[in-house]
């Protein structure tokens, strides 16, 4: 313990990763130093950009302190895209290492490789997938149900702040010290203090804990919003499918995040205070961890996949020019999946000592989930059947999802059989399987959502050419990267290996590395698409708000929507409320009268809590106790201070609402309604000619 312990805790000069690159230069250390440098340069570039453009004030005033669900949603997606870039880069490095590490140590140290697969998994689940879907839900769901905001707007901002603090903590781990090497599941006893001393596991614990608390709050918020804030006439069975999947996801969030929070807290007690929950001695039992973790972990899979199912249920009917086929069965299938997701957690550790009978029960339960999922796949196919299909980027991702997801589902049913699982567990077969579920079942869904709702959020479409380039790179890249892993898994290649001794693996590993590079191209194309679209936004703009001839309420306003979403809360008379209104000719009519609109006021609470949470997490990781105390006390001081603020709302006067609304209605009247044939061209200004 150094003299400076009470100020810096365990943090020392040689905690900086650059130190190792100087001290013992090797490719592995230099890659780590390069990554740290990128984080630092990225941060400096951001500071420079904000300063030069004078964006600090707008950033604080219009974004960070905003309780507007639309802005919070966009910020979530930004966090997700940044983290996606890092995690894809890590995946490429790992694939390259494995491809050159046949009878050769390759260029990464074993420890560095361990950190890479741990951060890759942790980021992809907690800091890419979760923020992405939470962002899309935030943006879309309140507008779909005809609400002005979520039920608890400031709490919504707090959720974002907590998740972001966790993401920042993971980024900081690139610069200070090491991340853990126990994978995204961080199983003890390996991650206990005896086998993993140091800060790595602590980074994981606190980053994940912050994210899971934020997600629990989001779940509560979404569920209450859907139950309490629906527009008049929007009964449960009239809700758009995306809102249904959001409801199921929200319920899963409320129930499933708690076991994770409890498990990480217990692991922390073991590590910090010498408790014996999961240790190998004094009655500790790591099986408790496995059960708690997967009690979260399996519902988590459906937290990830259900919102994407919702996205496909919106995208496919719109681009098929048809109504959604089998609405009721889709609702029931979604609910069935949500319930069944709590009955299968044991299949994640078939090989860890239960009786064969118990394994069999969970194997059957697991296969059962295939049934409602199959119902959904047929519903989506029948929605497309005899439709006028338009293969936009969003639709292409949806169709590719259908094909690819079925393949992944079938390998899932194979793994659900415990006898098969005994032969294939912990091999690359499993890695191929879950990437085969989550890339189409989450990422393709989120990319499709981005393509679909981007014009709603920003008032202009995304460039289709780069979108399609991205699509082909992602799709082909996925197959090239992961099909070889199925074969490798069956040949006995274990996951998380940083070095191989079987020359027969080589061709497969090289092909898989090529696939990873293609996926990287897909990601780059996605960013290029954003860049190109912003540059050409004048030719892509859709101010009238309905570029796709869409079905649900969120399209019944200008693009981008006003802060208050709807000038008057719409009345709903059936499913596909906006489509109905367009057919009745009531979609673009002025209301009888306008009223003042009450909106939540901006609040500095959320960003302050985010800073406090980051201090708390970083301090705990490095045992900097004054920082822990400051973070903890700061968070609660902010919460208590906030409870004394009485001016928590602001009013938009009726005449402002009227002026804005009439300007939009005027715009729609003056915008020629276009046929779907010119959907991709600059004539499409967001006024659709009805086709159904």
């Amino acid at each position, binding site marked *: 313990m150094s003299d400076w312990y009470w100020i810096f805790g365990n943090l020392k000069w040689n905690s900086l990763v650059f130190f190792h690159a100087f001290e013992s230069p090797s490719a592995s250390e230099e890659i780590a130093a390069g990554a740290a440098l990128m984080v630092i340069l990225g941060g400096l570039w951001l500071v420079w950009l904000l300063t030069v453009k004078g964006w600090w004030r707008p950033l604080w005033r219009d974004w960070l302190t905003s309780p507007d669900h639309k802005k919070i949603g966009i910020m979530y997606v930004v966090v997700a895209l940044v983290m996606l870039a890092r995690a894809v880069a890590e995946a490429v490095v790992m694939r390259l290492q494995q491809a050159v590490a046949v009878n050769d140590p390759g260029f990464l140290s074993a420890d560095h490789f361990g950190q890479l697969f741990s951060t890759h998994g942790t980021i992809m689940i907690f800091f890419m997938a979760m923020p992405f879907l939470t962002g899309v839900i935030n943006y879309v769901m309140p507008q779909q149900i005809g609400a002005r905001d979520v*039920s*608890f707007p400031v709490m919504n901002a707090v959720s974002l702040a907590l998740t972001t603090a966790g993401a920042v903590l993971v980024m900081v781990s690139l610069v200070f010290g090491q991340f853990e090497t126990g994978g995204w599941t961080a199983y003890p006893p390996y991650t206990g203090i005896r086998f993993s001393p140091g800060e790595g596991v602590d980074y994981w614990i606190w980053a994940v804990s912050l994210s899971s608390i934020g997600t*629990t709050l989001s*779940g*509560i*918020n979404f*569920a*209450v919003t859907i*139950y*309490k*804030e629906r527009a008049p006439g929007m009964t449960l069975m009239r809700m758009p499918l995306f809102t249904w999947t959001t409801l199921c996801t929200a319920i899963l969030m*409320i*129930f499933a*995040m*708690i*076991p994770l*929070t*409890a498990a990480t807290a*217990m692991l922390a*007690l*073991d590590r910090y*205070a*010498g*408790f*014996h*929950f999961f*240790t190998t*001695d*004094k*009655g*500790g*039992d790591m099986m*408790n961890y496995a059960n*708690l973790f997967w*009690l979260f972990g399996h519902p988590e899979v459906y937290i990830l996949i259900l919102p994407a199912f919702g996205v496909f249920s919106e995208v496919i009917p719109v681009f098929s020019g048809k109504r959604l086929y089998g609405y009721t069965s889709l609702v029931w299938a979604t609910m069935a999946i949500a319930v069944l997701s709590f009955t299968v957690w044991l299949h994640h550790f078939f090989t860890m000592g239960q009786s064969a009978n118990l394994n069999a029960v969970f194997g059957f339960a697991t296969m059962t989930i295939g049934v409602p999922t199959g119902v959904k796949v047929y519903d989506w196919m029948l929605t497309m059947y005899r439709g006028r299909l338009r293969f936009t980027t969003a639709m292409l991702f949806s169709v590719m999802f259908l094909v690819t997801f079925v393949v992944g589902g079938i390998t899932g049913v194979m793994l659900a059989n415990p006898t098969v699982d005994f032969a294939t567990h912990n091999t690359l077969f499993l890695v191929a399987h879950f990437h085969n579920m989550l890339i189409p079942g989450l990422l393709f869904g989120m990319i499709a959502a981005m393509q679909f709702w981007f014009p709603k959020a920003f008032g202009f479409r995304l460039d289709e050419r780069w979108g399609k380039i991205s699509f082909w790179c992602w799709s082909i890249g996925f197959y090239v990267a992961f099909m070889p892993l199925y074969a490798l898994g069956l040949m006995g290649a274990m996951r998380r290996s940083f070095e191989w001794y079987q020359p027969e693996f080589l061709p497969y590993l090289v092909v898989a590395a090529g696939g990873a590079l293609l996926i990287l191209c897909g990601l780059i194309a996605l960013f290029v698409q954003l860049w190109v679209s912003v540059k050409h936004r004048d030719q892509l703009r859709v101010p009238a708000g309905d570029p796709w001839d869409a079905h649900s309420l969120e399209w019944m306003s200008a693009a981008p929507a006003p802060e208050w979403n709807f000038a008057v809360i719409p009345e709903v008379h059936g499913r596909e409320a906006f489509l109905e209104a367009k057919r009745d000719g009531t979609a673009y009519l002025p209301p009888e009268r306008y009223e003042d609109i009450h909106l939540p006021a901006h609040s500095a609470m959320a960003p302050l809590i985010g800073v406090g949470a980051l201090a708390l997490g970083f301090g705990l990781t490095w045992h900097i106790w004054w920082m822990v105390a400051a973070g903890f006390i700061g968070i609660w001081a902010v919460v*208590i201070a906030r*409870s*004394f603020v*009485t001016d928590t709302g602001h009013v938009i006067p009726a005449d402002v609402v009227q002026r804005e609304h009439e300007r939009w209605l005027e715009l729609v009247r003056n915008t020629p309604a276009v046929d779907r044939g010119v959907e991709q061209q600059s004539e499409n200004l967001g006024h659709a000619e009805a086709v159904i």
Partner: protein
Amino acid sequence: MSAQTDPLYPGMTLEAADRDSHDAAEPVIFGFWIFLMSDLLLFAVLFATYAAMSTHGQADAPGPRELFELGSIFIETMLLLGSTFTFGMASLAMKYDQGAGAVVFWMVVTGLLGAGFLGFEISDFYQFAVIEGAPPQASGFLSSFYALVATHGLHVASALVWMVVMFVQIAVFGLSREVKLRIMRLALFWHMLDVVWVGIFTFVFLFGVVQ
């Protein structure tokens, strides 16, 4: 009108004396029930962990039977049950608009009972951990015992902080709508902690001594 008399949400309502606050309470109280549900899940997870650890996690440290004394546990139980009754009185005073004085009086009594509960619990922990040599570091069973019971205790402590904040807010704002809604949520939180304690009393202590 029948719609006017239907309670919009479960639990105690304000509709008798303060119709507007009653309406404003709907999403807030519903949201808080959902939060309570997730908080109960935390206890469910801790109970499940305790159930597993108390049977096969004792190692060579003292077990429930050697450790637990029902005397102080009984006092703690009575204090907490009593505090639920007194908080009920505070809620009724608020419901029937009997003035801030009555509400504060019953809440102060509740807070004192809660503080008494915490005092006994801390002395129990001292007795177990220091005098009888059974700290949480001694075995998996003890780890799970302290985690479960202290999580409940920390909830009670944070409810007491919340209560103090409410006293300040009553002094500053009077019984405004916001303050009323917060006291209603604090009441729900307090009663939930009592329910959890009934579970701890039965499952941990009673089962423990008869084991």
